[in-house]
């Protein structure tokens, strides 16, 4: 059962270097044939500086960074009972290979809810604002996790 006292808690920052191969790997895993994500020349021709990170790329630093298990542990969530409820991104600028992004995961809200069928669940809202190596805002990610009880 989630520790509902954790609203407002911040965790250790995630730092991630955006790599060309990882962008391509994400596009291939999704099955997106758009050459903008696969080929630098095609990206430049389409008005980009290089291949841009895909719209959902920010799941990569979150899942690969090693912070996630610690966060789940600190929130006292049973990971096997967790569903991903919502995900939202706000984009301030594109991410390109070589960018080093840093974001601090913050728990913005934790609450218990009762569904129409009467089952109880905890809702956990988390937000990460990422900045790049120049200190500029890159994107904000918001996630809603649902722990069934």
């Amino acid at each position, binding site marked *: 059962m989630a520790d509902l006292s954790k609203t407002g808690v911040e965790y250790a920052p995630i730092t991630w270097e955006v790599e060309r191969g*990882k962008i391509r*790997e*994400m596009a*291939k*895993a*999704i*099955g*997106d044939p*758009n*050459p*903008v994500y696969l080929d630098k020349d*095609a990206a430049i*021709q*389409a*008005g*980009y500086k290089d291949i*841009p990170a*895909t*719209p*959902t790329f920010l*799941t*990569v630093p*979150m*899942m*690969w*960074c090693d912070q996630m298990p610690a966060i789940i542990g600190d929130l006292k969530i049973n*990971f*096997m009972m967790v*569903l*991903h*409820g*919502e*995900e*939202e*991104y*706000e*984009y301030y600028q*594109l991410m390109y290979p070589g960018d080093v992004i840093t974001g601090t995961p913050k728990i913005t809200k934790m609450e218990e809810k009762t569904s129409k069928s009467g089952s109880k669940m905890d809702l956990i809202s988390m937000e990460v604002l990422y900045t790049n190596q120049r200190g500029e805002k890159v994107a904000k990610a*918001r996630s809603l996790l649902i722990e069934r009880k």
Partner: protein
Amino acid sequence: MAEQMYFEDVNVGDVMPELVKGPLQKLQFVMYAGASGDFNPLHNDDEFAMAVGMKNGVISHGMLVMGIVGQAITAWFPQKYLKKFGVRFAGMTQKNSTITVSGAVTDKRAEDGENIVSCEVIAKDENGDVKITGHFEASLPIK
């Protein structure tokens, strides 16, 4: 490659070209696990998935389906114009599902010196079951 797109050319009610993907194979979930770093066995281990109540075995990562919605969006509006993209995960996606993404423009407006279009998107499987409802905003150039 998408042609140059201008704010003036986009109208409320314009429909997104549909994207149909599938059937989604377990191999794709494994590829997505490696790409994203999400190795939850629910998405790669049939025995585990069945033991926790998934009668057809592994299910897709929600984020893979969001990625597919992202593919549909950026095939329509180039990513350089994308300002916001959010989804609600409405249901689990079984392996071998075929996902259809559709969407439409719901609003266009000038806001803080930018020319914004708002759209709604939806992803359904072959039975018409909704997997994702979402929205996005793009800031487009003017002529």
